[in-house]
């Protein structure tokens, strides 16, 4: 049994076990199995210049450290930093790695908030960002001919679910002297292991599947490089966009069921996707677990399963899509994805409203696209709900 003395996260082989035990030890004072919530800002010091590892919760907090240990362990890494939101993580990533005049290359279909951050906040500091179709290897090669600090990909892309080949992206960015950052929010390490495929940094909006209960907002940056981790930790402390102790504790609890949840999300999503595919009202559907998915072979190679997200469009475009979303009863209409409850979203008016229309069009985010984040309800109930809404 692991104790604080002999805890070695590496001894666990399987994710189900790591999600419960990896990277953190029981409380050293009381042996409590769950890490206490250290809802404190500051720490008493035995003498000037001496402390027990913590001085001020912006710089470090034991509950947040426990979460970071666990997040690093599930991604198969040594280091993680946790943030107050996913976008706070993206902000710190950019502030740590970029300076005025630097350039970055990103997937065209990244999350709308990432686009807004690059185009409306960081652009004023002279950071250049090129959004390209990273699923197209020719486009990747072209984009990396010009110097870039890092390549930022999201695979599957949100909300089009287009895949980017992580191994190829890692090889090309390495040749170009750029780091590879993978936003692994949609699949989590339960379904995709970007660091094993050559990525340098993994980003998470822990708000989604990692915490999984729609109870917190949070983010994380995970890496195997001590040098990169130090840069990130420095900027996080300097700008103070920290995760707080209570949401860190809730997230740590959420992680424990991550492998179980991801397996069920994927199984349910496949059922719902097959149902949608069979319906004449559906114009098109994209789900990486369907044989009809254009990049099905790549999905089988780099993902353990299809994940929870489905993108589709009903015949009749925007109007029919809005009608469908207003007719579902069990699926909640909400921004967000990855919670236990099934959520249905209209990206163009909700999550991706800040992405310029031209960029949306070229990324394949059509006005009628409906995104479904399939939850943990019984899939038959979900199918019945969508069925009555389609009618």
């Amino acid at each position, binding site marked *: 049994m692991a104790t604080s003395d002999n805890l070695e996260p590496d001894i666990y082989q399987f994710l189900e076990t790591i999600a419960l035990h990896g990277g953190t030890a029981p409380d050293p004072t009381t042996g409590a199995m769950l890490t206490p919530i250290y809802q404190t*800002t500051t720490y008493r010091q035995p003498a*000037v210049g001496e402390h027990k590892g913590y001085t001020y919760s912006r710089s470090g907090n034991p509950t947040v450290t426990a979460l970071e240990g666990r997040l690093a362990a599930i991604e198969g890494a040594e280091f993680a930093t946790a943030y*107050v939101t996913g976008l706070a993580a993206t902000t710190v990533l950019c*502030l740590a790695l970029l300076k005025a005049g630097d350039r970055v290359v990103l997937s065209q279909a990244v999350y709308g908030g990432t686009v807004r951050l690059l185009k409306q906040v960081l652009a004023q500091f002279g950071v250049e960002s090129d959004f390209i179709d990273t699923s197209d290897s020719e486009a990747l090669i072209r984009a990396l001919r010009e110097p870039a600090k890092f390549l930022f990909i999201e695979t599957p892309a949100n909300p089009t679910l287009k895949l980017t080949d992580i191994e190829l992206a890692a090889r090309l960015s390495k040749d170009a002297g750029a780091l590879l950052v993978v936003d692994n929010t949609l699949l989590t390490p339960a379904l995709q292991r970007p660091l094993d495929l050559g990525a340098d940094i993994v980003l998470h909006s822990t708000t989604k599947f990692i915490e999984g209960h729609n109870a917190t907002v949070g983010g994380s940056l995970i890496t195997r490089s001590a040098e990169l981790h130090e840069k990130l930790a420095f900027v996080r402390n300097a*700008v103070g966009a920290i995760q707080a102790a209570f*949401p860190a504790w809730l997230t740590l609890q959420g992680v424990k069921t991550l492998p179980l949840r991801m397996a069920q999300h994927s199984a349910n999503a496949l059922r719902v996707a097959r149902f949608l595919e069979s319906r004449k009202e559906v114009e098109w559907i994209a789900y990486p677990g369907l044989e009809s998915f254009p990049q099905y072979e790549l999905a089988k190679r780099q993902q353990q399963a299809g994940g929870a997200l489905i993108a589709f469009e009903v015949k009749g475009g925007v109007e029919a899509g*809005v009608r469908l979303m207003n007719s579902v009863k069990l699926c909640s209409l909400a921004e*967000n994805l990855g919670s236990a409850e099934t*959520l249905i979203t209209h990206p163009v008016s909700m999550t991706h409203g800040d992405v310029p229309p031209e960029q949306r069009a070229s990324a394949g985010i059509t006005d009628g696209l409906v995104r479904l984040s399939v939850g943990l309800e019984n899939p038959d109930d979900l199918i019945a709900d969508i069925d009555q809404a389609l009618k």
Partner: protein
Amino acid sequence: MKTATQCVHIESNDDPHCSISPPIYQTATFRQPSADEFGEYDYTRSGNPTRSLVERQIARLEGAEFACAFASGMAAISALTRLLGAGEEVIAGDDLYGGTVRLLDQVLPRQGIGVRYVDVTDVEAVREALNPRVRLILIETPSNPTMRIADIRALAGVAREAGALLAVDNSMLSPCNQKPLGLGADVVIHSATKFLCGHSDVTAGALVTDDYDLHRRLAFDQNAEGAGLSPFDSWLLLRGMKTLSLRVERQNESARKIAEFLSSRPEIVRVYYPGLADHPGRSIHCGQSTGDGAVISFTTGDVALSRQVVEATQLFDIAVSFGSIGSTISLPCRMSHASIPQSLRDRLAPPPDLVRLSVGIEDVDDLIEDLSQAFKIAEVPENAQSAVCVA
């Protein structure tokens, strides 16, 4: 309404159960009425009802219209600096908090933003340092830890003429002692971790303003970078602020007695406290503040002696931060201001023998007794000797 009344009466949100203590909306997302009409809240990074309450309450206490709450004081200051673009400049007081200096000096230059440290107690020096690139004047008054007094009204005039914004970090006094917006400041900054929270259990920050457009820009950034305060921490902060007026009244009173006690001690070279009659800038301070705060600094002329005093106190905890109900003692040069880069140490760091006290709400006679016994221990030559060895 007087501040003490405002502290206790939180403006209600529309909680259907009329709970006196508002609910904690520990949720990431909000169900929307339909696909084309949205409620006030959609996603907690963008806005959360519990956070809205704490923002309204902080704004009210500062006599202002608007506030944004952040994950830390540094996250608030970081968001404020996003008002600047590459090629623009900040004029900063030359004795700001070490974390603020780290941000200005090690993070902002990478984005092409310049900073100039000016003695802001000298209005003419600020006027001379102005140029068309200066967009922001950032001050603390009293400054931390040397309690220098800047003239808020005069600096507001200078900023207005130059088309720059004046931001006042009001963490040291809290709105119970000083309301900078009424004196002409454009933005008030809080490390809400300090007096506002007052219980050492929340790390938080705030930006307060009366200017709607400015508020919109700050709120845009709060959402875009995602450094907003979490619901649970917002709730704890709301709870803490109910006793703000009571705490500050007691802390002001106890601090005045301790400052007088320190002034009478032969070991002490100088006491820094704006409530003392001979404190430099005292008349300006009295013209803009209604109380003197609970932070006191003093020097002994002997680093080893100062360190011994810090370590010999029993009631005063050695800890960074200030403004809490529990008294703390620190050597800023080694602790809260240790992050000031070596190159700026000579100019910006507090003297190495300076001791900072934050006076809590314990009985003041106990606190004076504790300091008396600490001086007695520190003055025994062997003790001073051992301190040198430890150093």
